[in-house]
């Protein structure tokens, strides 16, 4: 676990991208009647960066994206691309490419016509349109389908065409609004790898909206986790997963055990959970002895049996043992709290039985003290 200075540095890296800012979202707010959909969103994205907006339905991620695209007008705040304020520009004057969840291909046009639409609107010469369309078809590996209509394509092919169409106009920023949500699981994985590969090849600044944590973790340079219209945390996938700053981030990203207890020694990071002592590597900031607090533990960091060293040990009763294929998940109850732990499947593994008393161990560094969500 990092020390305070390290944590501070991490927060800065997460909050502000290193290098020159290309896309800047400055204190963006959006209200629909009296309801705030987006509040005080602040984000700086560098050129060529892939940033995901991650959160549950209604958290404001799509509204934020739509404000960048120009489909929604912010109630306040500013959006700048390469230093130019585009907050009040209409969508057709932003040079921002957009890929929609529902593909949004024009049904009356062929694949080639769809891809060339933006160039035709921009009145580019026919030869240039043809060349660019062919480039894009090669990029998405669908040159043979250029004369097909959208209804003759599979969902995955349609979304690749939609991506090519958005990229054909050489936008400054590429926006993707849950582009894989309508596809089946297998296509989703292959297409997300393709999207990332194309994005890296072109070096285009990309904002990707998703509610799928796995997608965000596997694709992004940085993730912005949103909840109730606010940014909960900004950081690399590693930071977001391993060092969640709020209980929302901790519970939304990955599977998590939350243990509720009372602070025993704030400076020493000691907490009492169901009468057993748990020690966090970091001190518990802004708390006093006796305060209620929550700590989080990833299931994969907890092991059963006594572990060597000065880690934490807790004793409980096995409540359930679930065989999940490559992983076995064991649920252990203390008194009010329970934790799940994951262990890799091994034919020689002696699995505990339900009702058995079991000691579980976890390192001090794995204990994440959770903050309440920030109010600003």
């Amino acid at each position: 676990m990092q020390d305070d200075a390290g944590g501070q540095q991490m927060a800065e890296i997460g909050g502000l991208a290193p290098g020159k800012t290309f896309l800047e979202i400055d204190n963006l707010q959006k209200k629909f009647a009296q309801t705030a959909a987006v509040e005080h969103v602040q984000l700086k994205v560098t050129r060529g960066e892939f940033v995901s907006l991650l959160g549950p339905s209604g958290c404001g991620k799509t509204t934020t994206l739509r404000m960048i695209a120009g489909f929604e007008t912010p109630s306040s705040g500013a959006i700048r691309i390469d230093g130019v304020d585009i907050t009040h520009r209409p969508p057709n004057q932003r040079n921002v490419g957009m890929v929609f969840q529902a593909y949004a291909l024009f049904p009356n046009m062929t694949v080639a016509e769809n891809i060339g639409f933006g160039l035709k609107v921009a009145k580019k010469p026919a030869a240039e349109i043809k060349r660019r369309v062919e480039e894009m078809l090669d990029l998405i590996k669908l040159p043979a389908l250029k004369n097909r209509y959208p209804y003759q394509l599979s969902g995955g092919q349609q979304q690749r065409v939609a991506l090519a169409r958005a990229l054909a106009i050489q936008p400054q920023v590429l926006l993707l609004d849950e582009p894989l949500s309508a596809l089946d699981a297998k296509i989703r994985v292959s297409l997300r790898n393709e999207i990332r590969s194309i994005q890296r090849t072109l070096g285009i600044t990309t904002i990707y909206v998703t509610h799928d944590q796995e997608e965000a973790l596997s694709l992004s340079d940085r993730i912005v986790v949103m909840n109730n219209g606010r940014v909960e945390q900004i950081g690399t996938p590693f930071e977001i997963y391993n060092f969640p700053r709020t209980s929302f981030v901790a519970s939304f990203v990955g599977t998590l055990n939350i243990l509720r207890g009372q602070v025993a020694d704030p400076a020493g990071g000691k907490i009492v959970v169901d009468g057993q002592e748990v020690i966090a590597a970091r001190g518990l900031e802004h708390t006093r002895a006796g305060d209620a607090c929550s700590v989080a533990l990833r299931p994969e960091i907890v092991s059963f049996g006594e572990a060597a060293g000065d880690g934490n040990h807790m004793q409980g009763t096995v409540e359930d043992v679930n065989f999940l294929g490559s992983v076995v998940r064991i649920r252990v109850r203390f008194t009010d709290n329970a934790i799940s732990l994951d262990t890799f499947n091994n034919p020689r593994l002696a699995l505990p039985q339900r009702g058995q008393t079991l000691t579980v161990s976890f390192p001090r560094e794995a204990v994440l003290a959770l903050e309440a969500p920030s109010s600003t």
Partner: protein
Amino acid sequence: MKPNRIGPWLIVLAGALYFFVPLLGTFEFSLRYLRGVYSFEAYRIVLADPRFGATLTYSTVLAVATIIAGVVLVVPTAYWIQLRTPKLRPLVEFITLMPLVIPAIVLVFGYLRIYNSSSVLPLTGTDRTTDLLLMFSYTTLALPYMYRAVDTGLRAIDVRTLTEAAHSLGAGWPTILLRVILPNVRVAVLSGAFLTFAIVIGEFTMASLLDRPAFGPYLQLMGANRAYEPSALAVISFAITWACMGLLQLFAGRTPGQLPGAH
């Protein structure tokens, strides 16, 4: 099980008889112009009558003008309501239904009162402006059909996302409407156009009270003074209507890339 299958077929048969028997009767009667022998004499007389060609041409031109006016009025309106003001839909639907509730004769008397030659906007002052008034009257009369057809077509496509996609690719409103929306509701617009055509070709009240040489008053005139020719005219009218339907089907079948739901 069997009665369940026969039941619907009996209803279809009853409907077909109700529709076709009078038509066949009319056709058979139209062939009896010459005593004791079936002939197309009534058709020959009708087709030779210069008023037939003149009134049919007049009504066809007016129908085409009405269709253009209807499309220009309805497509952007229905599009905008779907895109930006869906809450207004019930109100607009109510307004477009008014011509079905208010009899044509009431409408035309209203027009005559407002647009007579001594009014501020004397549309009945000359033949051409009266034609214009008649065209607008027909547009109003066809509004319920045109609006519903276009609205149904627009509901079958994702108007909002298509608009946003086109917008993000740099297209302005006219481009979006003409190159993205209109081609995708072509079948719906054609349905509305066909219904408008059928209404205008047979319309009597407005054309008669505005004293214009349309096909409807000609049909009435023939019906009042001749025996066999009106039957021949009725059959010809059906043929024209069905030819229009055939053309519509032809266009619909050739429309590329139409969404299945848009048909």
